[in-house]
């Protein structure tokens, strides 16, 4: 039977996007300017895809029980994560199922991330070595 891991929820506000922009060096204005985001056809300011992936990475290392557990990690960005200019921002919910435990003890996780019920990633998976 497939093991399903406990879902993890992350809150994302505009302030988080500003912090992530500075830390990552990705200053694309669609992640902080409503005017520019809507000007290119987006619903509003959206989270960096790599910020969403970083939150999924937090979930993965928590499940694995080790900060250095991740051997492979891949995602496809299926749809944007709009982040409203409110104190609450939005929420990303990350879930995982164990797909496989390899002969040398590594665990393959199939991952999902949703925002307002929409899948924002597809084909997301990680290979981890638990401590």
């Amino acid at each position: 039977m497939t093991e399903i891991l406990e879902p993890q929820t992350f809150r994302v506000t505009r302030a988080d996007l500003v912090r992530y922009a500075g830390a990552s060096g990705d200053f694309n204005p669609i992640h902080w300017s409503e005017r520019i985001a809507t000007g290119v056809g987006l619903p509003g300011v959206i989270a960096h895809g790599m910020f969403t992936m970083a939150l999924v990475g937090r979930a993965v290392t928590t499940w694995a029980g080790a900060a250095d557990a991740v051997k492979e990690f891949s995602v496809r960005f299926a749809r944007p994560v709009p982040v409203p200019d409110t104190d609450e921002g939005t929420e990303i919910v990350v879930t995982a199922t164990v797909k496989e435990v390899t002969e040398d003890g590594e665990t393959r996780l199939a991952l999902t991330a949703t925002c307002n019920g929409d899948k924002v990633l597809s084909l997301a998976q990680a290979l981890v070595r638990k401590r």
Partner: protein
Amino acid sequence: MPLDQTFVGRTWPPTETYLVGREKIREFARAIGATDAEYHDPEAARAIGYPDVVAPPTFPVAITMAASRQVINDPGLGLDYSRVVHGDQRFAYTRPVVAGDALVCVNSVDEITTRGGHWFITTRTEVRTEAGEPVVTVWSKLVQRGEEHS
């Protein structure tokens, strides 16, 4: 604008060395809300076998995104960055990045395809130490949206 498919298979010279700072790793970890001790405390990192604080799994993109401008800003490629969105991202780690690493990036283009008026380019960045020790391989697929959809 079509992309120049002769870029597939091309490899660029190694980028200048990126010196990974302890405070940069801590800043990145704080920005994503990652509180694991190994990201912040050198002693905790040493306890699991690393010389200094360990970077979270997606940290390498802070290095490779800048490095891959070498490819995507090449005027010969024909990429219109104002119409680009991030498609796929993949990491394969030999070991985590740690503070004190002196890293160089070698960029290649793995694939260029087109479908439905959109163009897709996959770059691969091999991240190694100055001494040539492999650390992580990073693949990014960028999507240049067709003009009718922009």
